């Protein structure tokens, strides 16, 4: 951290990549919220769809994990 411009770029890039985690949070919240809205309308069908819920959350979360991974790579591996 002593005036190295490349290091600065790394840290800024890592911080920017971490924004992706927030985007993934929005996505996961969207999935869960819509599931809840549907489940409250038709509670009898909700139990059979929890697996779908988790698969949806997993897909949405995977992209956030990618962003996290990019941040980690920038911080430690580059």
């Amino acid at each position, binding site marked *: 951290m002593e005036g190295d411009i490349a290091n600065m770029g790394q840290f800024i890039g890592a911080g920017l990549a971490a924004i992706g985690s927030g985007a993934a949070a929005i996505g996961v919240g969207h999935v869960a919220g819509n599931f809840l809205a549907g489940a409250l309308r038709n509670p009898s069908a909700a139990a059979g769809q929890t*697996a779908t819920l*988790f*698969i949806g*959350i*997993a*897909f949405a*979360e*995977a992209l956030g*994990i*990618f962003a*996290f*991974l990019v941040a*980690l790579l920038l911080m*430690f591996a580059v």
Partner: protein
Amino acid sequence: MATDSNTSGDTQTAQSGSGRVIAFGLISVAVVLFILGLMDDYESGLSIHPMDQFIIEPFFGDGPIHWYTVTNSTVWMGLAVLAITALMVLGTRGRAVIPSRVQSVAELAYGFVRKMVEDVAGKDALPYFPYIFTLFLFILFANFLGLIPGSFTSTSHIAVTAVMAGAVFLTVTILGFIKNGAGFLSLFWVSSAPLVLRPILAVIELISYFVRPVSHSIRLAGNVMAGHAVLKVFAGFAGALGVGAVAPIIGVIAIYGLEVLVSAIQAYVFTILTCVYLKDALHPHH
């Protein structure tokens, strides 16, 4: 008569109450141990190394790591094997029609995964149930054992999750071609879409198919790694603040609870995605 029922009720309440107290006490002790261990490491102010906990070292002595060296990762994998054996073999040795607590936990896990395979991948996927159950139990126990303070989490390493995800990917792909021949390629040819769009969709489907093992492995390793790193960062704050670190300790406790949840959910998600991929191999038509 009335006193009898009263005393039995009291005993029951006392039992469940003491169970709760014991669980809470164990968690508290674990968190305190964790933090104490960290304070030992970080006496020299705020220098947090959240990734150091993932370093693989030889378990006995020092030296280079050969492919056969017993490392900390190996030891915790072995402990996972022991725990699984204790639950699934020792716990069920009574073969009781009316199960004991441990046996009913084992039966619960068995029924849970079996129902998942049957519901998601179909009845003809049941021959692959032992493989899926193996993956599920290994991930679950590795995750949970990794939450013991001072332990090592094997599943936080991409090498481990990538091998499992790659094995699932290869198995599913080969199985798809064996079961369906060239018909397996219809997985990429979306027949319900307009004809113009189909080649584009085929490219997208192909890419998403090959991204599967990547996301499958990185999801598990990334979740576990992120959780442990965040725990370490908070614990580092606690170590820097010393005795008055109330807020970081509360944060560590909250995130620890979240990590317990994440451990179970990630094992579930890995397993259910395996089932979904298996379903694609057995029934590739949309």
